[in-house]
């Protein structure tokens, strides 16, 4: 058992990088020995309990150039240093990106959300990260930068396992990009916790397009049911191109529940997760459909 001692157990050097260039240089210089500090709401907890050590801590939250949210009607670009609270308060997000809005709204308490960043939520690599399922269903891409250059990675390929991502040790997440989602879209996010503002026992996001009475494109993603947040393509296929109905929703949700293999941990049990995955997915599909202007 790890004990949180109030004290950061290991010695490290603290570096503040006010520009992206400096941050990337530092990361390259101390390659492998440095950790990035954004809001610190995940990192510091791990450092206090001795789960994580590093020789250098690079504080990047002050890089103004990475703190933005720009939407041009069709796409949305998010700077990773933006606080969860700023995302929650953004009118554009609230109006058009319901799943992301609902995810951020469900997270932590205001004080934590003022500190925490969306970049940190992703790079921390938790299977329960609440912003991951929305970004998965929006088909978001991530820009990973280093002095070697930039690369673009779909969110789907970003997560590798618990606390593991494809980020190289000299790379920084520098942008989250949501593509054009097309017309008549609706999205939703649902989560079950133990108390309000808790880490998810299970969460789910749905995003779909409506063409008349039928489902056009559709994505479904769960968190906290596998080593990483995951999409369920089989369930998506059941919905795609089909005329929407209650039976169809039940069929897709049932299929999804049969495909996930959650574990039992401190927050819940595998059988409960399996059981309620159906329930929240049904609900998620319904509200996404309604938001896309569909009727049931």
């Amino acid at each position, binding site marked *: 058992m790890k*004990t949180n*001692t109030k004290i950061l157990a290991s010695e490290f050097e603290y570096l503040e990088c006010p520009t992206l260039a400096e941050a990337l240089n530092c990361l390259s210089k101390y390659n492998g020995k440095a950790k990035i500090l954004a809001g610190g709401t995940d990192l510091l907890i791990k450092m206090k309990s001795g789960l994580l050590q590093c020789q250098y801590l690079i504080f990047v939250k002050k890089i103004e150039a990475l703190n933005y949210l720009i939407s041009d009607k069709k796409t949305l670009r998010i700077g990773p240093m933006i606080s969860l609270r700023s995302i929650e308060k953004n009118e554009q997000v609230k109006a058009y990106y319901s799943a992301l809005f609902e995810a951020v709204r469900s997270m932590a308490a205001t004080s934590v959300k003022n500190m925490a960043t969306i970049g940190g939520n992703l790079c921390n690599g938790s299977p329960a990260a609440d912003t991951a399922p929305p970004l998965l269903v929006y088909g978001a891409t991530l820009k990973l930068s280093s002095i070697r250059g930039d690369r673009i990675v779909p969110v789907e390929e970003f997560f590798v396992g618990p606390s593991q991502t494809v980020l190289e040790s000299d790379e920084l997440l520098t942008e989250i990009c949501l593509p054009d989602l097309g017309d008549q879209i609706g999205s939703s996010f649902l989560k079950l916790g133990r*108390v309000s503002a808790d880490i998810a026992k299970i969460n789910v996001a749905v995003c779909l397009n409506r063409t008349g009475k039928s489902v056009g494109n559709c994505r479904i993603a769960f968190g906290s049911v596998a080593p990483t947040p995951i999409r369920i393509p089989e369930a998506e296929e059941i919905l795609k191109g089909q005329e929407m109905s209650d039976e169809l929703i039940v069929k897709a949700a049932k299929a999804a529940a049969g495909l996930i293999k959650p574990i039992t941990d401190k927050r819940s049990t595998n059988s*409960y997760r399996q*059981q*309620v995955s159906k*329930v929240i997915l049904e609900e998620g599909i319904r509200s996404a459909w309604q938001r896309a202007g569909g009727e049931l």
Partner: protein
Amino acid sequence: METSVVGKGLPKFDAYTKAKGTIAYADDFSLPGMLYAKVLRSKYPAAMIISINTARAKSLPGVHAVMTGKDVPHNNLRAKFGQSTDIGPNFEGLYRVLAEEKVRFLGEAIALVAADSEKIAEEALALIDVIYEQLPGVFDPIEALKQDAYLVGDNDTNLVSQFKIRQGDVETAFKSADVIVENTYSVPFKDHAFLEPESGVAWVDENGIITIRVCTQVIEHFRTVAEVLGIPHNHVRVIGTWVGGGFGGKEDITVESFLALLTWKTKRPVKLTYTREESFLAHSKRHPFVMKYKTGATKDGLLVALETELIADSGAYTYLSPWVLLYATVNAAGPYNIPNVKVDTVAVLTNNPFSSAYRGFGAVQPNFAYESQMDELARILDLDPLTIRLKNCLQQGDTLTTGADFGGSVAVREVAEKAWQALGPKRADPGKHIKLGRGLAVGMMSYGRLTFLHDTSRSYIKLELDGSVLMRSGIPDLGAGQAQALVQIAAEELGVPLEKIKIFTSDTSLTPLAGTSTATRQLYMSGNATLKAAREVKERLINKASVMLKADKTDLKFENEKIIRISEPDKYLALSTVIGQCSTDGDELYSEAQFNAPFTEVPVSDVITGQTFADFTFGAYAVEVAIDEETGEVNVERAVTCYDVGKAINPLNVEGQLEGGGVDSIGYALTENFVVEQGYLKSHSLAEYLLPTALDVPDIETILVESGAGIGPYGAKGIGEPACNAMAPAIINAIRDAVGVRITSLPATPEKILFAMLSRIK
């Protein structure tokens, strides 16, 4: 009786400084040259310490002391846990400062370090080499009672205590019963999770007195600390700070002995503050209980017999287990008239965290069980929850199962009716998979200590020449307004505004000892002592004023800092004028008064009979819950509570106590699960141990009944601990009402509820 200050919901005098964050809690205080302490804790729940080598730690630069059990002058005490009366061996237990030989629980303190910084102290901990031999241990109280069980301590049994109640003949009575309900209930450990973890600073003053400034519910532990060091009692001084929550978790010694030892050894001031995780490891828990209940009734719904067996897990040390068990025993039948009762209770040592005081002190666990039983009986007999309670509840003039009389007022009927009726007409279910349900529960609990503990409290009031008032009381204020209540009483009696009264609290050398802030005793005990002291000084002022005004003593009243002739209100003297005259004449301008609770003898047999408590508080909770049938999630939509508080000295604070007790019990019922597996903690931080947040609790509606029949000042009863009764079973009964499943083990998680519903459908 007309009152002008008492009975008013005035803000606590400490509220503003607390809201501004300027109060110096225990950890907010430092001294020049201060060292920082850390505690080395056992890695195993059951082990033999083969050796401890402190050489490497001692040689670390910046380390000033490393101490183990060998360095403690009196490491093993037969403790009375803060008592000043002789209570006999059945209510004492071993207090071991640092583990020696056998380690009994995970996190047991083994060694202490004092160093120039917390960081160095922590590094030193890592340099202490302890060689353990792991032992099997025993983690289940039922296993621990078996013949050849692993022995937790050094005795030849793990049994801590056992009690019985025998009334009538249950065997025959069950034969005559039309319905019998039998269930086994269980409740887990509960952590106090106070906002402020254990903390203190100790130093040796210029006279060689070991002084400890600490957050505690019991400053009287100075005596035990002195005995640990082997020095006279008056060489240890404990200064209690404002406490950031106690709930029983700061009733036993926490950091005091460690601080005293380190400051005594180093002659330097020393600070020790636990982290949240360490706090979880270090302090006591509420006792888990397994409770078998068999309740019989006639077809008209009259209770005829109750047979119950309660098993309490004491964890690794005795502490207050015998007392908690006695409370559970006396409260096992609840506030009901049952002609035939058989109660058997045991408390057992295990290698789990040790259990001791937790707000509710043994009354809360059986409350969950007997109120669940009543609900089941009502369902079988097709009675509503109120009717079955009204048919059976105690009334004025009834006796306890021990044969003792209830004094004061027994308002079970009234509180149950008022709480239940306040819920109003039922609403329709809001959505197709959301089901509403309602539940009712009543509860009883004593206030004031066990009468054989011969409790006393003292309070001091002094008049200043300018008419202001100075008070001294040893009372620890836990945040519940303990000090405020005393000030309101003095203000009432002396006709002085609150702002003109200053109270100095919680100092074993300078304030009269008021006893512990535990057992819901302070308003009752110290309130009475304060009332007595105030009336003594008042009497002197009246005597003086009657001479000065040439008025009869009965013709005088105290109001607005004046002593006024009732018959001729334009004839009056300023209070300060009368005080001035007393001073000139050499009259005493102060009083220190002592209040004694009723005394009884220590029980000699394990069959409990007669009086063990001075009086009881009765209350009820009625709740409405909404349950999502598809996920098992519960939301407490409404909660109404009604308690007979005798007299609300400060209604605002009484409501605060009721709301706090309610919220605490929502956690007990639904979310708080202190998981211990084979002695290892699985919920060692607030990320695993889930307290309800502001978003998880409804507004709690409070209804105060003021019977005026309590034995506290102005007829007040105690409310702090009784407030933790009834909410948890009311919620569980409401879940039963909503979705038809009976949850018999707490907490009622969505997982439990959902699968109970699914298996019922199958």
